[in-house]
């Protein structure tokens, strides 16, 4: 039996023994919308279900919340092959993710690459154990697609930095313990005047106001900084060297999206919803028009999933990401928006409830998920920016003069 197969059987056995029954079964993606879900961890985690804490601690104990990170930083030290096996085994028993964390998805990888030893030892283990919950301070009201035009000021006051400004679309800032933040340390240059810095959200002068979305949820905040004092040791990488880190982190963010595409919304299965509400004629959906469009979508979704897998294999073989990864974020957004639109259409009026009597939980989730999905082509780089990137970096087309 190959090492990998040994690893698989051991993993399977361990999961059988250690994954609490209440942590099995789907729903993780739905939970991801709720800010107070225990699975996000952090200082202020509310353990509505103690099994959540148990599951997190057991997985963190093995370093499997961050399977491929080095052991010395609280990771599992697994090879990507082993990590894939672990994920397959987790999927097999429909285990909930032990920890949802921007620290693991986005910050960790760049700290491993750009942070100094002290910063790694300080932050990575706490991320892996789910002790500290992080949020991302990137966009500003005037700096959306054009992120590098950000203006949040960071002044060198000798023994500390002083930060003043405003961020927007900071995910769950109202629940986060720390923030990784892009700040302007030189106003004379654009990209070369940006630094990447970390600080505690409880520092005086930090205020996070949740933003209510059209879906009714508030996964994002406006975050205000007024004379926030930050130790100089919290700067990651070089002063004015933050843009490179910022771009790399966005790559990880997009790869993270690519891993599964956008989920969220209702678990309601599209063709079954259509069968229930539109009916069938000798086995086929009665509405041939809708059936054709559902199929077109399902094919595109399948093609997307196959592409993500192919790109992973190629990246593994080539020891580097294929240029095609830049299409993934765009495609992921389109696939999820098409799915949620079709689901709402298939449900008819039942898919257009806001709350209260007359609508099932799945139906409400479908409505909310459809609305939430509109953000997929905006958050983390708009689809327009994605297409610009493909045109210029991959296809080699030039800027308009």
């Amino acid at each position, binding site marked *: 039996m190959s090492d990998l197969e040994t690893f698989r059987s051991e993993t399977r056995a361990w999961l059988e023994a250690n994954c609490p029954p209440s942590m099995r079964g789907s729903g993780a993606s739905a939970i991801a919308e709720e800010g107070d879900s225990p699975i996000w961890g952090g200082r202020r985690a509310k353990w509505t279900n103690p099994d959540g804490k148990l599951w997190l601690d057991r997985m963190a104990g093995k370093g499997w919340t961050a399977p491929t990170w080095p052991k010395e930083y609280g990771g599992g030290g697994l090879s990507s092959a082993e990590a894939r096996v672990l994920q397959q085994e987790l999927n097999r028993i429909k285990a909930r993710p032990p920890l949802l964390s921007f620290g693991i998805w986005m910050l960790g990888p760049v700290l491993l690459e750009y942070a100094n030893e002290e910063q790694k030892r300080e932050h990575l283990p706490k991320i892996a154990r789910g002790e500290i919950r992080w949020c991302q301070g990137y966009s500003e009201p005037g700096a959306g697609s054009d992120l590098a035009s950000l203006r949040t000021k960071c002044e060198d006051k000798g023994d500390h930095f002083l930060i003043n400004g405003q961020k927007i679309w900071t995910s769950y800032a109202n629940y986060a313990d720390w923030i990784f933040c892009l700040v302007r340390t030189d106003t004379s240059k654009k990209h070369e005047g940006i630094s990447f810095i970390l600080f505690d959200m409880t520092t005086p002068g930090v205020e996070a106001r949740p933003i209510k979305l059209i879906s009714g949820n508030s996964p994002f905040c406006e975050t205000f900084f007024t004379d926030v004092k930050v130790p100089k040791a919290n700067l990651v990488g070089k002063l004015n060297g933050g843009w490179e880190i910022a771009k790399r982190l966005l790559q990880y963010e997009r790869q993270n999206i690519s891993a599964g595409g956008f989920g969220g919304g209702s678990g309601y299965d599209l063709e079954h919803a259509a069968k229930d509400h539109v009916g069938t004629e000798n086995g086929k959906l009665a509405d041939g028009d809708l059936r054709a469009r559902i199929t077109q979508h399902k094919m595109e979704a399948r093609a997307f999933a196959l592409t993500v897998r192919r790109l992973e294999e190629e990246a593994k073989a080539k020891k580097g990401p294929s240029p095609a990864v830049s299409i993934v974020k765009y495609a992921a957004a389109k696939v999820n928006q098409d799915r949620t639109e079709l689901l709402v259409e298939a449900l*008819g009026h039942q898919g257009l409830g806001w*709350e209260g009597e*007359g609508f099932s939980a799945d139906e409400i989730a479908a409505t909310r998920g459809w*609305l939430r999905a*509109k*953000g997929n082509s905006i958050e983390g780089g708009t*689809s327009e920016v994605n297409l610009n990137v493909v045109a210029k970096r991959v296809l080699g087309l030039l800027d308009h003069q």
Partner: protein
Amino acid sequence: MAVLSEEQTMLRDAAKSWVSEKSPVTAFRKLRDSGNADGFDRTAWSEMAQMGWAGILIPEEFGGSGLGYLTLGLVLEETGRTLTASPLVSTALTAATALLLGGNDAQKKAWLPKIAEGKAIATLAVDEAAHHAPARIALKATKSGTGWVLSGKKTFVLDGGAADLVIVAARTSGKSGDTSGITLFLVDGNAKGLSRQKLKSVDSRGVANLSFDNVEAGADAVLGSVDHGFGILEATLDRARAGLAAEMLGSATQAFETTLDYLKTRVQFGQVIGTFQSLQHRAAKMYTDLELTRSCVEAALSAIDNNSNDVAQLVSLAKAKANEVYHLVSNEMVQMHGGIGMTDAHDAGLYLKRARAAEATFGSAAYHRDRYASLLEY
């Protein structure tokens, strides 16, 4: 824009100014946040009635102006621009049409003046499931003595919670799916045995599920003739669809104009984003679709006014195109506004939500494509 008579132009302009003064989008937002159970503002409605809008279809003898469908469409387009939620569609358009097409003199006398005055809210109750299907009528009406007893349910009835009069499509013979065997009944909104469940829909309009438990209706409650109600029902629905399409055209046009303004002011990469060619071409295509849709909506309304023989075709065309263009524009409104368009504080979400609700009402685009093809026999 169709070539209008002076009377039509005056009414359109009056609507424009009233809507912008008395019923901007902020008014609808306030209504939504107030949790108003009716789904519309009764004060605003009485003002609309005073301006004669509730009686545009109703002949002068019954207290209206009898100006017709194209004229009502002009008003609906203006109210649609600001998402004004009112009984215009349920009462002044749909119910009034049913009474005009199917009502006897007594029935008209009883209801049309009240509707024209804005004193009565009325609606049509057709569908019994999630999708529009006028022939799928299972709600049963059985003879009892000289009158009838109704039992069954109706779903997503516009202003069904507030309606004083509910015009119910009931099954008096045959089975669900048959076009024959359907009869229309006038039922009092507060009739014994009628229970109404007001729904909280995504677009905050007043819709309700109605359930009928042995509701009694007299012989004089029958609208038109027994078992042969489908003709009136379809004709009524076609007029309702055309009017709703006009409202949707107004909403889509405003959504487009608001987005166009944003493209002209929002700066990224040192440029007003409206200078980016891909956005310009998407905007130009939306404008094209809006113009094509306007032609269909106006053609459908005029065909109704002229009793043309291609009303059904033109109406399915108009509703399908209105669905498609409002669907597209409402999505682009969010996308082109970027993050701000995703916030509840911005209007984009309100247009998006209204779009889908209106698309599903009286037939989706797919429903009307299928109907159009069937009318052309392929």
